[in-house]
């Protein structure tokens, strides 16, 4: 297997093992004494009032959506930035990325004007 493939598989395996190991240790070693009072929702030491499953404000969902979009955009920027200097024809790649970013910015401007980002 070519060298970089090995590095990638080792990285993935190590990541998975690390996550599984920490979860397993804490599950194995932590004392478990469940009780109905302990299962109550913690609301500053007082009795929670009203059902929590209510029709909640959509603002939070829109915020999260915008965040995810721009998070993925940065993920795409990374490989582009790494390989940008090696290739011969730099200009073409640069313009392509600018178009990609511009499209996403268009989406942001639309969301901003629609008032998705204001809390009131």
């Amino acid at each position: 297997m070519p060298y970089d493939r090995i590095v990638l598989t080792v990285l993935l395996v190590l990541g998975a093992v690390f996550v599984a190991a920490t979860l397993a240790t804490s599950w194995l070693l932590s004392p478990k004494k469940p009780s109905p009072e302990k299962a109550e929702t913690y609301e500053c030491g007082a009795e929670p009032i009203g059902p929590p499953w209510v029709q909640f404000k959509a603002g939070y969902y829109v915020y999260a959506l915008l965040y995810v979009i721009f998070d993925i955009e940065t993920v795409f920027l990374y490989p582009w930035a790494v390989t940008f200097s090696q290739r011969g024809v730099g200009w073409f790649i640069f313009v392509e990325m600018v178009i990609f970013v511009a499209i996403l910015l268009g989406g942001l401007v639309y969301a901003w004007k629609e008032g998705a980002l204001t809390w009131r």
Partner: protein
Amino acid sequence: MSDPREIGRPSGSLAAPDGILPAGTYEPEVLPAGLTRAPVGVNALATEHLIVNMGPQHPSTHGVLRVLIELDGEEVKAGEASVGYLHRGIEKLAESRRYSAVGTLMDRGDYISGIHNEMAFALAAEKLIDVEAPRRANWLRSLMAEINRIASHLVWYGPMGLDTGAMGPFLYAMRDREVLLDILEDVTGQRMMFNYVRPGGVLADITPAAEKKIRVFLETFDQYLDEHIEILAGNEIFQARMRGIGVIDRERAVGFALTGANLRASGLSFDVRKDRPYAAYSELDFSIPVAQEGDCFARFMVRMEEMRQSVRMIRQCIDGLPEGEFTAKVPKVLRPPAGEAYGAVESPRGELGVHLISDGSDTPYRMRYRPPALYALQVGESLLPGVLLADAVVILGSTDIVLGEIDR
């Protein structure tokens, strides 16, 4: 899968649909007044309100205050304060304590500014037995009161930074407060529960060691105060969080009987030290900081300026401390004649009054302790509707409430 909105709806009886929520967490039948659940029969986009407990155990309620907040997303629709988690009956216990022992109860009322509480009771008792504290006692009282005021403002300033998200100022505030507590301990013997001001005078004279510490404190604190103001007040995030938030106009301040820095931040310069001079305040020269906007930032700057004035007063007290007795000749067991008296003091939270009714025996017949923080909490509660949740925390913090005083 049935319509999810149906599951959340309380179906008349308190029983919850099987498995979703344990029965106990449903809303009690009677909702506190002022809180109304969202209208049933929600159309497509309208949102239901959520009632949240900013409860007795909460890092930013400055004590055991429980605020029931009705939230629509981030916006507070209605809020109701529920107090009484620290009700210890100071007024009832005072009816069975001798006049010299009531000071210990008063210390534990507003536990951050003990000297002011004791002085309010001492002034009321002195009016009843018609005794005037000697001049040196009055100067010592003013000196200790101003030191206690700075210590109390620092305990308000630290958590004010925490409320707006700044961890640093809390540690600076505690560093300066420790210096002040050392001075208070040298003179009175205790860091918080001084029992120093008695009817007739004070407990003990000032020691040279304490005097030296006060002089060292005076040299460094002005520069520290500028540093505090620059760190927090200069920060534009802090200003964005404080300016224009929780505006209390003049009519609301007078209507809700606000006193102290909260009132002076709304433009009315009523200060018990100037309008009803007690102790040595008539002989000290100091100015009363007044702001006009009445928002959280105005209250902040008024209190920071009050600390600077207190430093000025401490310097005058130390330099001009008159000679003489530090307490008047007062019988060990006071038996004031039957009558009523009202003694008021400018505590860091406002006008702290003691209305003392005596029936001639050695214990007061009735002692009413006027809590300035209770009126500040009332205004805070009335400002809640229409505010963002983060600002509700800042408003309650800026009015500087202490739950020991509200619940007495």
